[in-house]
């Protein structure tokens, strides 16, 4: 299946988990994939090798999307590689936190919003000049944007702050879709349930087990 032949794609947070699987799938479909990573240099490079060994095209680029300038720096690198057209943008990079309400710090909260909401917002802003008719933006949201999972309780760990970032992201998706639609740019969110990756490791602990409800994708 080479439906993305000659297309360019950026996947943020592609060194592992959902981002990694997405980058592989896009490369298999024929796209030239930009594998973005924050700190996992080894994993990102090994993914690029894997894609190239299978006959695909990929480059690894790094930027800390948690910093205010991160999105602009990443966009600059993207433009230097793909030139004036990005066909697919997968906003996947994200962090999570599971803790009691009382155990969330201001820093935890700010980091969650910086990476999960501010990063995507400014990345889209900075990449707008090279998103064209037919381009597609996919934001990785979460099922928990709209439902509360696990056993809610003041003394139980919760992912409420994380969930609120995904609610914010979905609202951005709707607005982007309405605003960019007339230019032929589609914007959608994919909301996974609990998927077996490093991020969901907390569901394998006693405290987090309730959240997964016994079923993982």
């Amino acid at each position, binding site marked *: 299946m080479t439906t993305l032949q000659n297309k360019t794609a950026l996947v943020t947070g592609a060194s592992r988990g959902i981002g990694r699987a997405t980058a592989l799938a896009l490369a298999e479909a024929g796209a030239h994939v930009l594998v973005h990573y924050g700190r996992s240099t080894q994993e990102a490079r090994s993914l690029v090798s894997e894609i190239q060994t299978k006959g695909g095209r990929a480059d690894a680029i790094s930027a800390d999307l948690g910093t205010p300038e991160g999105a602009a720096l990443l966009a600059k690198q993207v433009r230097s590689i793909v030139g004036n057209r990005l066909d697919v943008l997968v906003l996947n990079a994200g962090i999570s936190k599971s803790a009691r309400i009382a155990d969330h710090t201001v820093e935890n909260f700010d980091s969650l919003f910086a990476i999960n909401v501010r990063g995507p917002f400014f990345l889209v802003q900075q990449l707008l000049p090279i998103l064209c008719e037919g381009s597609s933006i996919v934001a990785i949201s979460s099922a928990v944007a709209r439902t509360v999972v696990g056993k809610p309780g003041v003394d139980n760990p919760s992912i409420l702050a994380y969930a609120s970032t995904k609610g914010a992201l979905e609202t951005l998706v709707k607005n982007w879709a309405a605003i960019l639609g*007339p230019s032929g740019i589609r914007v959608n969110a994919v909301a996974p*349930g609990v998927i077996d990756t490093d991020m969901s490791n907390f569901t394998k602990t006693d405290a987090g087990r309730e959240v997964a409800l016994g079923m993982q994708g």
Partner: protein
Amino acid sequence: MSKLAKKVALVTGGSRGIGAAIAKRLAADGASVAITYAKDATAASAVVKAIELSGGKAIAIQADAADGKAVKGAVEKTVASFGRLDVLVNNAGTAIPKTFEETTLEEMDRVIDINLGGVFAATQAALKHMKDGGRIINIGSAVGERVQTPGLVPYSATKGAVKIFTQGLSREVGSRGITVNNVQPGPIDTDLNPASGDWAVPQKAATALNRYGHVDEVAALVAFVAGPESSYITGANLTVDGGMNA
């Protein structure tokens, strides 16, 4: 590409429009396909021929979607002909575009009988034959989420019901590995809702892409949901509506 090789699909209302496109696409993906039709035997047989010409297998079964018994019979006939049933696409549906106050009670009943009654009957009959990997795919509507345009009140009410039916049923059959999903098209250019018709202007304006959709654009999503890659998607309401719900 044969993601549905060895699978059997039943598409209600498959003689034209979205249903015909779905039937052809599922057959192209390798499924043996049965379609039901109410009155147009010629159109139904044309769909079957088109599938056979491309190397696929198909049959057409006469069954008015408002008649629960007939619909049940169509499910049984599908299983009798092909030996199994893996995918049910509840596509048959109707709309009578006019203001609510001008709609007669008989017209309302007809919309309810086809869009809801027929769906219940087909699904219940199909579940008797479905196993792990089975797919119930309801064709709801973008106006079953939010109603952006006038003239579709009874129709949108039934499509809102289809949304919750999807969610509720998904929980009852999930442990058997059967997924239940709701594909919600926006305005698609068909006999039921022609892009050149009177009611088209406000619908087009309500989309972000500023155009009607094509039947193949709906069939593509249905094909994905019918296939093996959608294995973790259930109870989902999937709009394919040009951004009408954005």
